[in-house]
């Protein structure tokens, strides 16, 4: 009797025990800070003072009424789109090319990951120099072709393009590798049949590969979106370490906006409110992505 009871306990309870470490860590390191941030966001909570007056929703109302917040949201979405769309398209194309027969396959595949291994700070500093107005390489090349000099950091569109370039350079290879892995699971017979029917390489990519790796595409889109919503180091370093994001906040992202409040003005209450609103926005963005991408039809 006892033995069978113990056996039942083992089969029922053990799985939970095995996953417990993750959830214990999650509770301590994610859930608690998340909830505590919510608590802080309801207060006038300066990092330097001991008294924290309760404000209710005031921080949220100030936030939503602040044009700089909407500006930061626009910048974030703009940089997100400018960096994610070309990045994932490029990654798909690269993965497709690399999934065929190539000499030195491992070498090419490994080198895809190299940009991802460089530190963000190094990438941002180098790209900051490339996009310099007076002595930047990009302007020099433009000058050779007779185009004028662009003050990359000064304009809204130009600064977004420059920052997106950093992200694209860093993450395209990473996503290409993920696609490549997924492509290995696409049955070769489908491709062979299509080749016999005279389908071109691009047609096969569009009609066979993309529908077949749809779940992976959804995964990368969602992960890139979450990453893009939290874009921080690139615009920070592009602006010389200033969280303002340029002289007119033209490339201040939401995270920079949050950072400026929390660690520039030491207003943790307001920064926490921003964090919660961002959390909600990420959820919305992920849901929208999911709905959009789900419409890619399976064969």
């Amino acid at each position, binding site marked *: 009797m006892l033995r069978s009871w113990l056996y039942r306990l083992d089969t029922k309870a053990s799985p939970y025990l095995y996953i417990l470490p993750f959830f214990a860590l999650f509770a301590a390191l994610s859930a608690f800070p998340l909830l505590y941030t919510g608590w802080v966001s309801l207060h006038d909570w300066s990092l330097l003072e001991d008294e924290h007056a309760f404000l209710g929703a005031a921080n949220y109302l100030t936030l939503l009424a602040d044009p700089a917040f909407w500006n930061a949201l626009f910048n974030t979405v703009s940089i997100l789109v400018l960096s994610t769309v070309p990045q994932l398209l490029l990654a798909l194309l690269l993965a497709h090319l690399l999934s065929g027969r190539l000499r030195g396959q491992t070498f090419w595949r490994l080198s895809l990951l190299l940009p991802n291994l460089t530190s963000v700070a190094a990438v941002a*500093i180098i790209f900051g120099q490339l996009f310099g107005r007076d002595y930047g390489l990009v302007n020099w090349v433009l000058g050779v072709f007779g185009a004028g000099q662009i003050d990359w950091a000064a304009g809204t569109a130009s600064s977004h393009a420059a920052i997106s370039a950093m992200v694209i350079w860093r993450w395209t290879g990473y996503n290409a590798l993920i696609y490549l892995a997924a492509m290995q699971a696409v049955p070769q017979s489908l491709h062979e049949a299509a080749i016999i029917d005279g389908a071109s390489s691009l047609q096969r990519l569009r009609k066979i590969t993309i529908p077949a790796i749809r779940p992976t595409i959804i995964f990368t889109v969602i992960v890139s979106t979450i990453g893009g919503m939290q874009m921080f180091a690139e615009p920070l370093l592009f602006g010389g*370490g200033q969280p303002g994001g340029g002289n007119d906040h033209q490339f201040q992202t939401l995270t920079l906006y949050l950072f400026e409040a929390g660690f*520039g003005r030491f207003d943790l209450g307001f920064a926490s409110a921003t964090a919660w609103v961002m959390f909600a926005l990420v959820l919305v963005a992920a849901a929208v992505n999911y709905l959009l991408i789900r419409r890619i039809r399976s064969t």
Partner: protein
Amino acid sequence: MRLQRGLLVPLLLLAVTACGGGTSGSGGTTPAASGAAGGGAKTKIVIGTFNDFGYQSLYQEYEKAHPEIDIVERVAAAEEHHRRVATNLATGKGAADIEAIEEGWIGQFKANPDKFHNLTELGADKLASQWPEWKWKTSQSKDGRQLGLGTDVGGLAMCYRTDLFAKAGLPTDREQVSRLWSTWDGYIETGKKFAAAKLPKTAFFDGPIVMYRAILGQAPTGLYATDDTVVVETNPEVRAAFDKTIEAIGAGLSAKITAWSADWNAGFQRGSFATIACPAWMMAYIQEQAKNAAGKWDIAAIPGGTGNWGGSFLTLPKQGKNPEAAFALASWLTAPEQQAKVFRAKGNFPSTNKLYSDPVITDFVNPFFNDAPVGKIFSQSVATMNAQYLGPKAGDINTAINNALTRVEQGKQTPDEAWNQAMTEVKKIL
């Protein structure tokens, strides 16, 4: 030590070098002194600094003289350091026994003096006369508590390129150059003569940020009144500094380069601009950025004669367990003898009166700057100045005004539009 917010990139690099100096970064989270009660146990004093205070050899010297003391230094980049201190004070844990705080941040910390020991109670009042009065008062809270002991200062001068001045037909001798611009109007007039020579790819000054900061720093009152009320809109001096900078931009004298950007760094080397207002710490920066331009730069007096930008203090957070021992170390490190040693080794400009008439300073020339008597030039600019009161958010307010100046320079807005937007942003900061 220098510092302006916005030096992250150079500082990241500096921090790497600074950490190579044999200090352990942050070591652990238990900086408090280990109890000295246990007979032979050493008293550990943790000191938090940023960039390069040049204290390494001084620690060894002090430990030799005081075998019972064990000094541990934590070094970080300036922004990171001050953010850490703020966080440590807020959470009540982790602050070092001695924390260095830069002028640009001291206002924020002064607004909450309860977190620090009042150094007067530890005997600092006896030392007060070591420093110029303004330096002493900068780290004093509104209720008269003394929070810090001054380390270095950033006296103002004007750095200029002799080679470009010669090409433009202007005098190159520093005495004559100084006479050209006893006022900022004289500076702009000289700039117009320089511009008339139409040297290719060379402007008279770098950009609005440094010039505005230098002019504003000379006013008796700046962004704050002494009771911590912000007077940006009512104090005509602020708008005057803004307008004078706009006037110089309007005359076509600016290279339109953002300070601390990659183009700015390259500009020192390539001669994109012929002059720049130079706090003492800027010398090290120029030498670092423009290694091949040795002998081309020289230093003249600043228009208006005096001024200061930057400099730091050593403070004692209340979390420290051994205030007496920490105070003894902090006052030793900031004493004139030690400041002279740091100056000789690293060039951080001393903040003590006594040294301004000492041959250590007065005879010091900098070969990179054409053997300019920089000791004399910088002491003149700080010894006689009237300090401006720096309030808690001065750094953020200046950033908003800097941004406004840059928007005007880039043609995005008129001066009035830019000013009004800056005032809106200032209200948000407060």
